[in-house]
């Protein structure tokens, strides 16, 4: 739980920390848009290279970013696998005949059972899981044990590989970019920046100040609520709830015993926060003075121009190619 990085500010040095939050937010939008527009491999690799370079130049702890990406791994893997299996456009790259025979199924079951028992003892659980998944398909495709009662075909198309790859890369790039923003920007600065960036929306009578406040409070409370969850787990563990094992029925009970106090505490906290804000004369929608003023520096202009250049370059490359 502790190593969830999304939404957590980590103090540090480097130029990203000194930049104006407005720059970072606008640059993030430009770069995310670029990630969506990219359609060919070379550009994507260049983009990933630039992103890694940004991490290095910004002196951001890369291990931290990666450990934050870990919870996404399963999502990414499944997106990729689903693309492979179900996208049927483009040229046929490879095709296997799947052979469903009783003996084959036995072999597959043995593989899955081995995985089930060995997985706890091994490092790199995730890669092991993927390897097993691929192994299951490989077994069906290659083994020819006994007569088959049914056969199927597994076709992999060119578009499937491409789309899968791009979806995964895009998600990775987007999450890494937003992690950079939240890692290097204090919640208060983020709030100021968001408010300032969204202020043109006031024309449409959208209360940007309140929206910015809502966003920044939710970001601020992610780590707090995680800490609370940890404490609740300890309190329930001391009443005999074992969160690491148990049958399915027990699991539901465990989750309920965690979620109910979680909800109660969140409501209570938000109520207290509202009172604390009111006690300090916070009135929604009223103009307020600020302790911190945002200052626009030369570095900000450069960063903005560079991110705009990236976007233009990506668009041009798409139009030209």
């Amino acid at each position, binding site marked *: 739980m502790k190593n969830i990085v999304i939404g957590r500010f980590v103090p540090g040095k480097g130029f990203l920390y000194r930049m104006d939050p407005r720059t970072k937010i606008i640059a993030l939008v430009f770069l995310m848009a670029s990630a969506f527009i990219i359609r060919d491999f070379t550009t994507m690799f260049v983009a990933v290279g630039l992103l890694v370079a940004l991490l290095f130049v910004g002196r951001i702890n890369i291990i931290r970013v990666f450990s934050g990406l870990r919870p996404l791994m399963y999502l990414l893997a499944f997106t990729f696998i689903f693309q492979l299996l179900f996208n049927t456009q483009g040229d046929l790259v490879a095709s296997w005949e799947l052979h469903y025979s009783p003996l084959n199924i036995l072999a597959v079951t043995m593989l899955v059972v081995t995985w089930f028992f060995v997985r706890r003892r091994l490092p790199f659980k995730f890669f092991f899981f993927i390897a097993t998944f691929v192994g299951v398909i490989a077994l069906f495709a290659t083994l020819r044990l006994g007569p088959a009662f049914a056969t199927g075909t597994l076709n992999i198309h060119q578009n499937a590989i491409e789309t899968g790859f791009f979806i995964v890369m895009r998600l990775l790039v987007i999450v890494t970019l937003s992690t950079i923003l939240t890692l290097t920007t204090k919640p208060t600065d983020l709030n100021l920046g968001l408010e300032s960036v969204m202020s043109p929306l006031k024309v449409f009578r959208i209360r940007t100040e309140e929206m910015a406040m809502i966003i920044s409070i939710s970001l601020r409370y992610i780590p707090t609520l995680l800490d609370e969850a940890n404490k609740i787990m300890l*309190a329930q563990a*001391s*009443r*005999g709830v074992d969160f690491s094992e148990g049958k399915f029925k027990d699991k539901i009970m465990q989750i309920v*015993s965690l979620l109910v106090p979680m909800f*109660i505490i969140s409501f209570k906290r938000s109520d207290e926060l509202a009172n604390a804000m009111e006690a300090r004369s916070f009135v929604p929608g009223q103009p307020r003075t600020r302790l911190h003023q945002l200052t626009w520096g030369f570095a900000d202009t450069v960063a903005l121009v560079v991110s705009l250049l990236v976007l233009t370059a990506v668009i041009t490359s798409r139009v030209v190619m």
Partner: protein
Amino acid sequence: MAIKFNRVDFKYKGEGKKGYLALSNISLSIQGEGEFITLIGETGSGKTTLVQHMNALLVADSGSVDIYGIKVEKEAVKKKKIRLNPIRKKVGLVFQFPEYQLFEETVLKDITFGPKNFGVPEKDAVETAKSVIKIVGLDESYLERSPFNLSGGEKKRVSIAGILAMEPDILILDEPTSGLDPLGRNALLKVFFDIHQKLNKTVIIITHDMNTVYEYAKRVLVMRDSYLVYDGDPVNLFTSKNIENWNLDVPDVLDLTNKLERDLGISLKTRPRSASDLTKALEEVLR
């Protein structure tokens, strides 16, 4: 020896590169019966961390904690070589804030939650619930109420009842009397002392109230900046010079006895530890 700390170090990770050192080189033994221990020290000195090691909620970074013959060590816990639930059945820990543990629809269900997790049949658990709710000073009508519509003090009592229902051998309470009025506080402390005396159980209480320490404790542990700086008799503690260094108060009764002796020249024959003892001793001298 029920609980034995052997050179335990513990560090909270994540706060900066170094982490936050909560326990350093703690060695200590606690008997499984007949002890009444209070644990005191400033906020952030490691009291809660220490008691969370006593039922294996936290595991020492280095060193080990022996709990009823089970050696709790980092490697063993990581590899799931030992089962922790039997430990938690024997050492019951009540958390400081009841909000962290109450979750059921009714008080009854919440109290029986712990026993049922340890395999006690429903019927027996209900019987225990009916008796523990009285022990903590509430009546049976509370059993059907929702734990969320109770006052702060009532929630606290229900959360204590939830642990008492598990019938642990050692009962640990993290600031059990915070947020209670003086009357309720005294009543609850009597309850803990009764549990200790009648059932000869070991009770460990974290507190900031020196009067509690002086009146009830047979043994005091003082934590300071992650070190265990004192382990022994409360009388010796409060008559030593160290209490000022450790930012501890002098208990009211002791303070008054000292003033009587210094300012009025009244010296008592006994050393009273509670208000009522002091009155008796005074009557004896002044008669």
